[in-house]
């Protein structure tokens, strides 16, 4: 198989009883670009958190590169995560590290060579337009700037899979398009991209596979789809 991600009958119940995912079946090919759309609370973030095992499914199997990560051993989890770049909806930057250090961290974790780190981090910060903020701390950044640091960190180690949870939620349209450019480029280089988004403009203009989620179920799976939900 060249399936990067496969889900088989995945269910997720949160400890308080909320059923966030109700039987997801899905397969995403290596190099595909998939939008996840759906109303607020549909389960997009929950779906995404399954892929890098921030959450374990209550039921079902999730294969990343043909390995079932639902039954992955704890010690193996970090190695899974290193193959997946993640843009968090709430950014999750390390508050005591500068912008530079936050991005570099993802490379230090994989014990990249220090000289390599420097060059690569500067390149990526340039891509997201934050070279001038490299010495700032997260709490000294605007919302959109924090979001871009999170994006920079997710792509810095060139992961084969990129997962982005609403990566343009705090960005103006112009900056959003810049980011989409970056995503397009790394997608062209073979990176699988899963992106949860509310941005109708982007989904409609840059056509890719669209996965509609509602009430924790896949209600639409459309190649070259549009955002849908027209008002």
């Amino acid at each position, binding site marked *: 198989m060249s399936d990067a991600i496969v889900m088989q009958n995945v269910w997720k119940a949160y400890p308080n009883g909320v059923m966030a995912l109700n039987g997801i079946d899905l397969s995403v090919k290596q190099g595909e670009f998939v939008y996840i759309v759906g109303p607020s609370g549909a389960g997009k973030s929950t779906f995404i958190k399954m892929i*890098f095992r*921030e959450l374990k499914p209550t039921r079902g199997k999730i294969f990343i590169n043909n390995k079932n990560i639902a039954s992955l051993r*704890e*010690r193996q*989890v*970090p*190695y899974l*995560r*290193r193959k997946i770049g*993640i843009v*968090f909806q709430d950014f*999750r*930057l*390390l*508050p*005591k590290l500068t912008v530079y250090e936050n991005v570099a*961290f*993802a490379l230090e*974790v*994989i014990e990249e060579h220090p000289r390599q780190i420097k060059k690569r981090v500067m390149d990526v910060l340039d891509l997201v337009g934050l070279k001038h903020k490299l010495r700032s701390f997260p709490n000294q950044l605007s919302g959109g700037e924090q979001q871009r640091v999170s994006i920079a*960190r997710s792509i810095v180690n060139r992961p084969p899979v990129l997962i982005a949870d609403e990566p343009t939620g705090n960005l103006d349209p112009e900056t959003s398009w810049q980011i989409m450019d970056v995503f397009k480029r790394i997608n062209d280089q073979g990176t699988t991209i899963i992106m949860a988004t509310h941005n109708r403009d982007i989904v409609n203009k840059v056509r890719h596979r669209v996965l509609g989620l509602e009430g924790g179920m896949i209600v639409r799976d459309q190649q070259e789809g549009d955002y849908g939900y027209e008002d």
Partner: protein
Amino acid sequence: MTFASVSAVTVALVLVGLFLMVMFNLNKIAGDIESDVEVRVYLDQSISQSEQETLATELKGIKNVQEVRFQSKKEGLNNLLESLGNDKKSFTDLQKENPLPNAFILKTKQPEQTIAVAKKAVQFPNVTDVRYGKGTVERLFSFIRIARNVGIVLILGLLFTSVFLIANTIKLTIVARRSEIEIMKLVGATNAFVRWPYFIEGLVMGVMGSIIPIVLVMVVYRLAYYNLGGDLQQMFIKLIPYHTMVTNLSLLLVAIGALIGVWGSLNSVRKFLKI
């Protein structure tokens, strides 16, 4: 944040250090006093020289007796008068007609054996009386035993308390960094990678926290040793020598500090690693 932890270590170790300083000395003094306990065997005034020599050998033969020493009546009186302090002058009459008998002084191998030895000694001929400060010695022993037990309980309590306090403080500082640890893990850091800085931090914290207690112990013991030492020596009480005490206690404090620091740090990190 780290300041909070270092100062918790400092505070705890100051208490532990001062307390240990006192305890070690009390323990030594108690030991000294114990080993000073002796059995006095009073002899019949009419005992002959040869009988006396036989008795000495026989006494020496009693199980657990380590040393037998003869104390003449004169020596005995002097000792008695000495123990009365400077009221001695009033007793000049006594020296003319000494009412005390001659005696053998026995030392036992272990202080606790005094009582058994005394019971045997009293059965020999020509022995009029055997004294070992009955009651007094027994009370002294039980006092020392109680004091030691109380001391051990206190020191364990104090240590436990310190560990608890320090761990508590460290935990609070690390809880504040919970999300930090979780983010690291989500970005692909292994447990070891996350733990490492916390290990170092715990170690540094522990060692730094033991600096003030060590200095304090040194200063306080120097003062105590050189100021009180003399007075106490007059009362036949010897303190643990300055350098022995300070060296041992310093090492002990650093070790305790480092151990608790590292343990508290790693222990607090542990539960946030499970993501």
